[in-house]
């Protein structure tokens, strides 16, 4: 990921570390802002195919830290406009690549944060997304026909952000497909019917149900317990039984529990400590787990999780859409969230 072509000249910020907290706030800001500058260029080539999502991760994290003005809005929006496919209406991760629903969601999320949906052809996006729905209610990720519950989430998230959920897709069938991926053994969800429950895919499915206002279909107590069981003695969360903890699962488990009104079922304090140990205190940024190399993906999910946990100095984040709450409010969107029992 390289933001150098989007970064404004760096602001000089005086006070470095806030000593009342363990969060290396300014280091992270710097890390995101400068990401790519001193990295091997090889990384830039290798991540071309996901650049749109990379920008979304950086933009969102900076906005949550109230530092959005460090990136240049105009050049980012120009980049996004160039990535919209004139034929299908979907977005490519980067010019010269093919459109995919994953990058289409990232593009729409960035545009919503910048309040710039008017800059692109939204009708074409709606056509693209609704055209990917299959008879059984599932969604293709692109024209090549991979089906996955991730794409169900992307579809309803895009349409919700565009305010075009009604009359564009068959919502009932979409819900039916997602529920067919619910596992009887643990109440969780996999990528397809019969596939193993996985915290990332649970986030997609719970988020999907939140956006389609159908959380009543969940066995909240059962799934809630399974999600709580993801917390290990280190305080970190894993994504499946017997796997290692990882900062991005902090986000996926945490946001799912928040949507289900069950955040208090895990130890917030222990999780917070785990996330903070995954910061890189020299370069800034968060790694998947303590001692590993940071990346922008885990940086967003570390910051996002801390925001959910009410960390001081961070803006509120919406657990369903992983975007600043004020943006969701501005759009007048109300993803369903269950109240604490």
């Amino acid at each position: 990921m390289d933001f150098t072509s989007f970064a404004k000249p760096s602001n000089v910020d005086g006070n470095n570390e806030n000593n009342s907290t363990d969060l290396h706030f300014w280091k992270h800001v710097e890390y995101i802002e400068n990401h790519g500058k001193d990295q091997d260029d090889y990384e830039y080539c290798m991540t071309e195919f996901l650049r749109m999502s990379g920008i979304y991760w950086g933009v969102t994290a900076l906005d949550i830290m109230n530092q959005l003005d460090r990136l240049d809005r105009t050049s980012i929006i120009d980049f996004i406009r160039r990535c919209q496919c004139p034929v299908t209406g979907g977005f490519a991760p980067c010019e010269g690549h093919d459109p995919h629903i994953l990058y289409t969601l990232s593009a729409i999320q960035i545009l919503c944060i910048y309040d710039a949906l008017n800059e692109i052809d939204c009708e074409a996006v709606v056509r693209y997304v609704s055209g990917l729905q299959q008879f059984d209610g599932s969604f293709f990720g692109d024209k090549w026909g991979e089906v996955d519950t991730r794409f169900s989430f992307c579809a309803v998230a895009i349409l919700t952000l565009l305010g075009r959920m009604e009359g564009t897709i068959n919502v009932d069938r979409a819900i039916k497909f997602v529920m067919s991926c619910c596992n009887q053994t643990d109440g969780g969800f996999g990528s397809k019917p019969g596939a193993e429950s996985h915290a990332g895919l649970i986030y997609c499915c719970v988020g999907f149900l939140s956006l389609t206002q159908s959380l009543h279909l969940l066995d909240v107590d059962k799934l809630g317990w399974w999600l709580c069981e993801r917390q290990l003695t280190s305080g970190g969360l894993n994504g499946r039984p017997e796997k290692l903890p990882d900062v991005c699962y902090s986000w996926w488990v945490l946001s799912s529990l928040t949507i289900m009104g069950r955040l208090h079922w895990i130890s917030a304090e222990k999780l917070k400590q785990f996330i903070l140990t995954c910061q890189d205190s020299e370069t800034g940024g968060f790694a998947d787990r303590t001692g590993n190399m940071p990346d922008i993906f885990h940086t967003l999910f570390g910051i996002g999780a801390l925001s959910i946990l009410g960390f001081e100095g961070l803006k509120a984040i919406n657990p369903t859409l992983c975007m600043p709450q004020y943006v969701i409010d501005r759009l007048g969107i109300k993803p369903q969230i269950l109240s604490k029992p």
Partner: protein
Amino acid sequence: MEQSYESAVGTIQRILGLYFVKCLKGGKMSDSDSDDWSEEWIPYSERNEWADIVPIPQDDGEHPIVAIAYSPKFREVFDYFRAVLAHREKSQRALELTADALRLNPANYTVWQYRRDILRALESDLYEELDYLDEVIRDNAKNYQVWHHRRVIVEMLNDSSKELELTEVALERDNKNYHAWQHRQWAIKTFDLFENELSFVDRLIAEDIRNNSAWNQRFFVLKHFGFTSDVVQREIQYTMNRIRVVKNNESAWNYLGGILKYEDNGTGNCHQEVLSFCEELYTSGVRSPYLLAFLIDLYRDQCLQQSNVTESDVLSRKVFNLCNDMSKKYDIVRRKYWQYIAEQFKENLAEK
């Protein structure tokens, strides 16, 4: 258990379908000079058979603040790829070019898509493509694009005879590889390969009794054959035997709960048997949170169905005591959950 590097890389791919920067750390698919093909490498610009092609450089936007220093090999291969793509050239040399491009970056899904276009146009031998993919998957077992390509080729061939072996090899290297399991389930469902799957699952559970993916596969297979009462009975024995070996096994307990639901109304013999089994474990001193959670469920259901007041009181006391033990001793981290379960139960009792 899988290596942390692999898991770090896999995490992102699993969720977002992306291949991410962490490959740098392991140097996999490296574009560096140390990789195994650099010595025999002849630049495309020096190959006679490519003399007619004018490469198309990457457009980094009008005003790139920092010029991107792609490695020469990477830059050249993709410049030629862009040229071939622009001409829609579908030839043997273009096919070989995509292999070079994919070797440099196997996550570039545009290259995979174009490769499929070429294979169709040339009516290539798709069995050769399967052999090629065996290798690519071996080196990139957590890459979405690779598995998807495999699936499309298998569909084109309408021949799934190699898929079980392929996924078995991948699962030998990482027995929880989500991609391999997905592909295996897809092949089994699409080509009706259920027949010997249960013995495969048996073997995996024997090798790693906590392998949640294998337990999930067990459920997947049996759901297909149908949960007759014989099957339910057999599975309950199977699972109880494995819990006796490892008591604190989340996967096995969840599986037991899933199977038990297939017994009518949860009041039949199996239910009693499982209850005795749990009580026996409890009496012998086992305090696994999964065991206690299971007992709470069983006592709660029994209590709410019990019309005899004295019996019901005995059961409800057990539920409250266990919830209390969980929140204060055995599962303190999740105490709020157990307090909630006790509260809920109190409300259910009042409504009874």
